[in-house]
């Protein structure tokens, strides 16, 4: 059953990638799409659009989706709380704060590098606070909420304090945008996903146990203090580059794990890959809608994801039993 689910979702992902390649501001027919993909003579324009714009963007969307969904599932288990995602516990917001500061200080020099360094640096502070916390249960979640609220408030302050073009580009980036993605950015996002996955290798069993509660995991012999650090570090690696390069893409980390569980992938060995595939599908579909639905105007990714993801989550809720 799990192999069938994985196969079906992989097929849906592939179809969504093909559709995302096909649809865009520059309308292509099927022949232009194929000609552009294979760089046939006479298809130089479609080749350039597909290889320089759409393909890196689709791959970045997919990689971000996988990373954010996996991080969301890991955070929900680390906090033993199903309503947690990276925005709520401050990792995304602190990465966004750092990214915003990086962009402002870059003064148009290598913005990507400054944004990544800023995101990682500030998100590390948040993760250190979380990792060193001795709180468990609801107090740990509320501690994360407080850190998130501080980071969000500081981010709003930085955005409000910026002027002119800086303010506009910050606002566009904060709400999530893949419009400036390059192949270099795709490579960084992919490396971050790879590194995060390496950290999480062999952690699925412990994540299963801790999702029932930190105290109960410790009573079963899990060294939750040191493992909590590994899990939070993995989330930092998965989330910070994604926020730095694509802005805050909300909802995926919350919704994808829930949909995965509804489809039967509950244990982390299945949950992480299935949620990852769902995350990729969500972000690719949302990004395709963002750049096509309103003509030349590109709708910020967070808005599309919220409008697309909330109904999905409501459907999931309908299928869940009441307490």
């Amino acid at each position, binding site marked *: 059953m799990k192999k069938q689910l994985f196969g079906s979702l992989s097929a849906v992902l592939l179809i969504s990638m093909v559709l995302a390649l096909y649809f865009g501001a520059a309308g292509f027919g099927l022949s232009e799409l194929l000609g552009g993909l294979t760089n046939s003579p006479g298809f130089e324009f479609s080749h350039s659009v597909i290889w320089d714009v759409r393909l890196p963007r689709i791959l970045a969307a997919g990689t971000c989706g996988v990373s954010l969904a996996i991080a969301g599932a890991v955070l929900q288990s680390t906090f033993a709380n199903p309503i947690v995602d990276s925005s709520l516990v401050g990792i995304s917001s602190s990465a966004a704060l750092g990214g915003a500061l990086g962009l402002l200080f870059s003064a148009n020099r290598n913005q990507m590098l400054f944004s990544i360094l800023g995101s990682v640096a500030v998100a590390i502070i948040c993760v250190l606070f979380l990792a060193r916390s001795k709180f468990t249960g609801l107090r740990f979640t509320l501690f994360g909420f407080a850190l998130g609220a501080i980071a969000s408030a500081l981010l709003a302050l930085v955005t409000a304090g910026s002027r002119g073009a800086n303010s506009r580009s910050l606002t566009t980036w904060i709400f999530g945008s893949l419009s400036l993605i390059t192949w270099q950015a795709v490579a960084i996002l992919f490396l971050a996903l790879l590194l995060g996955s390496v950290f999480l290798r062999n952690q699925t069993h412990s994540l299963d*146990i801790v*999702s*029932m*509660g930190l105290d109960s995991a410790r009573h*079963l*012999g899990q060294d939750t203090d040191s493992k909590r650090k590994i899990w939070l570090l993995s989330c930092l690696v998965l989330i910070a580059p994604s926020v730095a390069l694509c802005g805050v893409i909300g909802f995926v980390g919350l919704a994808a794990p829930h949909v995965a*569980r509804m489809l039967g992938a*509950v244990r982390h060995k299945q949950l992480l890959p299935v949620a990852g595939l769902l995350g990729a599908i969500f972000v690719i579909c949302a990004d395709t809608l963002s750049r096509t639905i309103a003509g030349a105007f590109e709708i910020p990714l967070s808005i599309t994801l919220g409008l697309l993801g909330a109904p999905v989550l409501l459907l999931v809720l309908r299928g869940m039993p009441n307490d």
Partner: protein
Amino acid sequence: MINPSGSVQLDNANVVLSNRLILDNISFRADPGSIHCLIGPNGAGKSTLLRVLGADIAGGKLSLSGVDAASASIPELARIRSFLRSNEKPNFPYLIFDVLSWSVSSQDLTDTDSRVQQALAAVGMHGMENHKITELSSGQLTKINIAATILQSSDIIFADEPEANLDPVARKQIWELLRDTKKTLVITTHDLEIVKEFATHITALVDGRIVFSKAIADVTEQEMLEIYQG
């Protein structure tokens, strides 16, 4: 020499939480196989004492099954003692089999299937392994949690009001299941009828101090009631 497996010994525990003295110079002893009930009014320090005895929080010199708890590793402690999980509704829809299999020691995974079946049969829930843990009633969840402690293979079980939120029949069933584990039990409770029926020893606490700690045969009903009357 007496085999210390299942023994609990705590000396001179003082616990201060949020600048308040919760436990005041507590010493405690439970022999292997005894059923030791901790009673006392709300706020007396019963749950804190239970966590100190289970090496969940530090306080005093603690020995579990003859092992110095302060120098034991987390996996070692898990082999010596288990805590009965509270019957709060779990957040994620794992199968009962999955949840129970986590309690099987990693050195002993070869026969997980049949051990889980046996533990389920022991608590009267045979054939429920493929049900979701989120779909159980409080009573069923407590039974599953008892099955988990049976699988953990430790000699000592700590439980904090295991009968809470259960109807009178289920309360008695849960205590019978716990007694049938034949392990050392240290349990906090407010149910004095249950205490009289199942306990071998009682420790009464008021304001973080032990008022008495003795065998059930030596405790009068009046003594128990006075603990709650102040």
